[in-house]
């Protein structure tokens, strides 16, 4: 076995991963990018394995991405929209976990609106668990796909300056990306109004800015975050027009960044709120569509790693 292999049982977060862990996943995913671009994109690595997408919160793109990844590797993928089933019926998370576990899946992909819930579930099952987003905590496959996108375009992550802009307070994408980019030796900035920054964020190893022009000065990568609509009208920011004027990415603010700076967004975008269409659709600078493509490759790599770990699977009796 590869001495640099990823040796964790689950993928619950970026926190705790080594640079070697991350590089291993990215290298593996890199190969899947090429495979996915071929007409024949089916492998049988996961033949006979069961993957359950267990989403306690609505999702289209992440769930579909995992589903495509699982099927391309030959696994049986089952989608469970738990948000509309057992939670409504009052079942506790642990009971749901026990029920799922009894069906003997090989990988559980879990999204949950509460921070820490995926870890709790992982402690109650025998199979591998991939965190597909827990509350405002982590979304590790997003950070990995972002890293792969950057690495393929810039060649490496170390030494780059990345500005993460917008609703950092509520963002699991931001937390995972901060952890990953710092681990890989990039310099990370966050840019947001003070109402959208969590306390002590500077202790996460980021430089804090409240002004886009200052925050974007000479950066290599601009990562925009989604602003949820319930936060747009007064509770955290007063209005979408004010948000766009001061914190929305447009051509003017982007001038502060390096001339070859690239733009990313985890989607779904609010055009005219956090990002202008002219910037989002700039084929030379926007990596937003590539991010989606890299998402499938990264998730295939993660599934391969999880399924290949001998400590996962049914307990020996």
């Amino acid at each position, binding site marked *: 076995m590869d001495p640099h292999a990823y040796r964790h049982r689950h993928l619950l977060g970026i926190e705790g991963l080594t640079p070697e862990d991350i590089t291993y996943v990215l290298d593996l995913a890199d190969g899947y990018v090429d495979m996915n671009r071929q007409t024949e994109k089916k492998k049988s690595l996961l033949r006979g394995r069961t993957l359950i997408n267990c989403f306690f919160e609505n999702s289209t793109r992440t769930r579909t991405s995992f589903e495509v990844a699982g099927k391309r590797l030959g696994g049986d993928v089952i989608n469970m929209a738990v948000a509309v089933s057992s939670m409504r019926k009052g079942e506790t998370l642990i009971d749901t976990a026990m029920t799922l576990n009894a069906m003997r899946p090989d990988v559980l992909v879990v999204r949950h609106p509460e921070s820490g819930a995926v870890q709790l579930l992982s402690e109650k099952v025998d199979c591998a668990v991939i965190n597909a987003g827990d509350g405002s905590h982590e979304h590790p496959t997003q950070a990995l796909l972002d890293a792969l996108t950057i690495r393929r375009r810039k060649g490496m992550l170390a030494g780059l300056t990345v500005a993460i802009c917008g609703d950092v307070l509520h963002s699991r994408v931001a937390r995972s990306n901060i952890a990953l980019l710092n681990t890989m030796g990039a310099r990370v900035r966050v840019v947001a109004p003070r109402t959208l920054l969590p306390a002590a964020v500077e202790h996460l190893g980021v430089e804090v800015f409240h002004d886009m022009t200052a925050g974007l000065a000479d950066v290599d990568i601009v990562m925009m975050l989604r602003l949820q609509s319930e936060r747009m009208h*007064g509770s955290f920011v007063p209005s979408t027009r004010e948000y766009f004027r001061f914190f929305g990415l447009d051509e003017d603010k982007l001038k502060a960044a390096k001339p070859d700076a690239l733009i990313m967004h985890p989607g779904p975008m609010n055009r005219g709120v956090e990002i202008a269409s002219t910037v989002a659709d700039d084929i030379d600078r926007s990596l937003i569509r590539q991010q989606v493509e890299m998402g499938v490759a990264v998730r295939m790599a993660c599934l391969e790693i999880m399924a290949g770990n001998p400590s996962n699977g049914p307990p020996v009796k």
Partner: protein
Amino acid sequence: MSLRRLFRGARLLDPDSGRDGVGDIIVVGGRIAAIGANISGDELGPDVEIVDVGGSCLAPGLVDMRVQLREPGAEHIESVESGSQAAAAGGVTTMVALPNTEPPVDDVSVVEFLARRAREVRLTKVHTYATATKGMAGKELTEMGLLAANGALGFTDGVKAIADALIMRRVLAYARTFDQLVIQHPEEPSLASAGEVTEGEIATRLGLAGITPAAEVIIVERDLRLVAITGARYHVAHVSTAATIEAIRRAKTDGLPVTCDTAPPYFALNETAIGDYRTFAKLSPPLRAEHDRRAVVAGLADGTIDAIASDHSPWDQDSKRLPFSSASYGIVGLETLLPLSLELYHNRHLPLIDVLRRLTIAPARILGLGVGRLAAGAPADFVIFDPDAKYRVRTDAFRSKSKNAPFDGRPVQGRVELTVVDGRTIFERAA
């Protein structure tokens, strides 16, 4: 040819530089071109207008950081025009209006409307605050970035306290993002809603519902902790109790970005002014007990209280000729701001230059305005006054549309003779 004027033989008083001495001022094109002793106006040529000040005091025009102008919405009570005339007569050259109009100043268009009205009236310089929350409802943030970019000088819900602690925290954090000032009306609303005067013997004898004076310090202490978290610039309007002043004194020692003002009623009157249910003495916060009034004077003397504002709150007779509990809160103050503040000087609580400091450069600095000082290059905004002239206040002579002040007939000292804005005379007392 721009306007050239020489003001000769004045006692120049400039709190910013500490200047207090006889001298002259040359004004060219709306700005002070030169200031000092024995400036000759010869080089100005023959077109210069010479004003002989005759030994009167010449100080920076007063900067009044808290007035209500009632426009838009209640122009029968006050307007930008009538308020500006009252300000000019009071020696006020810059004033900042509260946003509690109808509609309130929570939208850029209202800021622009007021700026246009001020340009049309063209007397005292008129600025405005914007509301901290939409509709002053205390729930949602206003567009502080856009409002500030269009001229709003700070954010406040006017005569309403920002009550909810979480909202106040977000108001402060959001204002700090744009380095904006947040101004609090310091009355804890649930406590204040219990009454209309300060609780105590007088309230009890009159049978009026009392408000504990602690309603003020409770909300200020809470806010100071939120200021420590957010780092926002925070200003407490019209402080009136010893406990509040002590809390602010401590916060300043701790290095928090905190300032405050008070208004003449809080050092010129105490709760006994309510007398026989005089609604003209009903204001918010209410007049306090004598020991609190003395604390306000002490706070002004030691600088804990940075500024004096008129807290000009005009009301028509229909709003005040009512049973005490039904009457509106507030006193008009623009035309008595200087003489009532000068009582602090005449009663030997503060040197003249320090009284003027609290009326000029101190509020100008809090607001980030380049006015309030006599210096070459500064705007030629000043007031010429006789600090010793004795007379009685006559509210019926006020230029304000509203006459609601409890000072009618009060003997005072200090009269404005001439008010100048950008070199133009906007008020001159009839001989």
